[in-house]
């Protein structure tokens, strides 16, 4: 038995700002011209065996460089770059070794928790944030899963992920480390590392004696320091789900790593010269280990206007991380500053939400989030958020207006993502939308690592207008 499905998606985006790019004034150009072809094949060679393979062929729609070598004009990878993804490739065997146990192995994406997107219990796959507008994507990973159904109301899951895969980050992420220069090329601002304000004042004092126009900063280099794939670097998750009436309750434990990077160390290499002193900034980030004990639920309340409630809460026991910054002149140490970045103290992340449909015309989802999915109670801390997503539907759902909005209650930055979707014909959709970020692009205190606004900082990305056409089959 074969079951073939998939989609083709054409996505065109246009930057509608000119201040959020690497250089002020850069904008009002096309930023994306992408075509995805997703092909999913589901094979059932035996009633108890299922194989799933899902690939995605992505064409980027731009040549690889504006100054492409003429000699490369024959090369498809240069003229029309593309990538092949393998989003799923696993085999599932039912009723093995017992009738109430299923096994799965291969490249999978597993979702735990009840709250969409913001569940702190959803840790088995890292996030694929390479396209911040496609924020629900995950990084597929090879794993082994055992699902047990001992009773009708209880489900048990155990997952082993041998190799850690980090989250993918948006192209704008390096802007979090970018130095800022004025039109004359003089240093105007250096991004504060995760040190105390007093330590960053020391750093500022070190360079304040030097003419900022005499400093030549190379682009900061930030590299990951990944685990070495020892057995202890594996990830393990255990979950129990209980279904009682309308209540779906989950308990879970996870041992593994936080999928987003945490600042680990930085080396500032100073090479005095004339007329300019060259400065190179090389930083490393790591993915700290953590244990997570979590609880989640979903419940639909027929006695209360049919409101659906969801909640996720997790206590996270993090690995402590000390951040160190060293300044070296011609290779000799000049100054070393050390500051705890992750204290090692347990902390809580939680999401609670409610959703309700109002007839056939309106659906509303609202959530409170303590700790965004990329926050780990490091020097940046945990912020609080509210999200509100109304969706208006007319013409028998053929025309939908969905407005996803998130407000950071801590720094008041925000993001609004309106999408107008027209179902032209069954299986064919056209979406017109915008992705708009609000908040200060500059930290409120240049010496305070935590004072960057969540959605306002340049690393959060660009304001975009979107036209997307999708056909599914």
């Amino acid at each position: 038995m074969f079951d073939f499905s998939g989609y083709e998606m054409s996505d065109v985006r246009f930057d509608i700002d000119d201040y959020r790019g690497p250089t002020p004034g850069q904008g009002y150009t096309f930023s994306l011209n992408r075509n995805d072809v997703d092909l999913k094949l589901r094979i059932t060679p035996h009633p108890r065996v299922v194989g799933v393979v899902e690939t995605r062929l992505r064409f980027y729609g731009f040549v690889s460089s504006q100054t492409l070598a003429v000699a490369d004009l024959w090369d498809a990878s240069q003229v029309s770059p593309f990538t092949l993804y393998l989003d799923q490739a696993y085999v599932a065997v039912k009723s093995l070794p017992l009738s109430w146990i299923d096994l799965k192995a291969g490249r999978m994406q597993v979702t735990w928790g009840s709250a969409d997107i913001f569940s702190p219990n959803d840790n088995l796959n890292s996030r694929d944030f390479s396209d911040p507008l496609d924020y629900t994507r995950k990084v597929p990973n090879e794993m082994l899963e055992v699902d047990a159904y001992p009773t009708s109301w209880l489900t048990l899951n155990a997952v082993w992920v041998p190799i850690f895969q980090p989250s993918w980050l948006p192209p704008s992420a390096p802007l979090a480390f970018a130095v800022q220069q004025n039109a004359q090329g003089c240093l105007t601002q250096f991004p504060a590392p995760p040190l105390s304000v007093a330590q960053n004042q020391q750093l500022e004092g070190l360079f304040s004696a030097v003419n900022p126009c005499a400093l030549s900063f190379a682009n900061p280099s930030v590299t990951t320091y990944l685990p070495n794939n020892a057995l202890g670097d594996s990830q393990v998750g255990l979950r129990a789900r209980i279904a009682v009436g309308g209540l779906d309750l989950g308990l879970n434990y996870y041992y593994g790593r936080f999928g987003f990077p945490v600042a680990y160390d930085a080396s500032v290499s100073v090479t005095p010269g004339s007329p300019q002193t060259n400065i190179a900034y090389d930083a490393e980030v790591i993915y700290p280990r953590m244990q997570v004990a979590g609880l989640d639920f979903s419940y639909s309340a027929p006695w209360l206007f049919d409101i659906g409630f969801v909640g996720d809460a997790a206590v996270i026991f993090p690995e402590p991380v000390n951040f160190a910054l060293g300044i070296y002149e011609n290779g000799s140490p000049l100054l070393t500053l050390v500051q705890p970045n992750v204290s090692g103290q347990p902390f809580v992340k939680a999401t609670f939400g409610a959703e309700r449909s109002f007839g056939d015309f309106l659906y509303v989802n609202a959530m409170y989030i303590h700790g965004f999915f990329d926050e780990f109670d490091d020097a940046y801390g945990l912020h609080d958020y509210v999200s509100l997503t109304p969706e208006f539907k007319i013409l028998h759902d053929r025309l939908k207006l969905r407005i996803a909005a998130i407000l950071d209650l801590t720094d008041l930055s925000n993001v609004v993502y309106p999408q107008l979707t027209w179902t032209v014909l069954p299986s064919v959709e056209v979406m017109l939308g915008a992705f708009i970020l609000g908040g200060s692009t500059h930290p409120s205190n240049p010496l305070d690592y935590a004072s960057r606004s969540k959605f306002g900082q340049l690393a959060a990305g660009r304001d975009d207008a979107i036209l997307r056409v999708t056909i599914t089959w």
Partner: protein
Amino acid sequence: MHALALLVLLPTAACDWGEDGLARLEQLHPPPAVPAGTNGAACQMPDADGGTVTAPDEGCLGLLSGQWAVRLVQFANISPLGPPPWNLTITDLFLAQLSSDKSSLQLTFCGEENALTDDTGAPQTLGQNTIPPALVSALAAAPLVVPLPGDGTLQASGVVWLWGLQGLANPATTEADAGTVWDQDMDGNPGVTVDVISPQGAIYLVKRAIFDFEQGSVTPGWLTGPLEFTVDQNALGATSALLDATVPITPRSGCASVYQLKCVDAAFTCDSLVQGYETLFVNAPN
């Protein structure tokens, strides 16, 4: 069974986990050997563990005869990068002999060692000075004269020690062409030239230190006591803009600076003192 063992193994690994960026930095940039004279903790005397501890020579009786090795240990604060202040321990080394009329002690400069630690106690080299041989010779050529009460003890106040300055009453200036500044080490630069470890370079400065030698204790072969000091030091120039800055040096509260004199034989030299100052004064009476 294997999976079960894994489940037990993984959480227990959390007991000793932790990622230290400093260790990683030291792996990427192996630190150089800590320079001699670094003493680490606050108020720690510049004494080294181990080595041969020698008894004082018997050729001295109070401050009435003999040659003395002198160590002035000054606990100070300095803020090269602004607050919080760092700990600076200045150890000035001299050989001392009595004047012929026994009315004063002539302190011939042998060298100076500086130990710098940041507010966490970690050794730092930013702005740390070393004294080049030319300056040692220049300062040695003008011995520091400490008046004595004549009773074999040491008690003197307002003892002024000048580097690159003329006129005891003149404060340190910031003007290289001020009339009070002279090229004491005769290297062509104003004032005196002090080497800086990092950023590597040299700074041209003038300095006026004022010492108060308070009444101390006299024991056979030893003479030690509290030392009060003020340092007025100004930069007149430097080999790089980073170094051309005047950073005040202030006495460190909570730490008692001291002077220590130990009787040594006539063959004892400045070189012996500079090489052995970390062990020579071990067991000095308080």
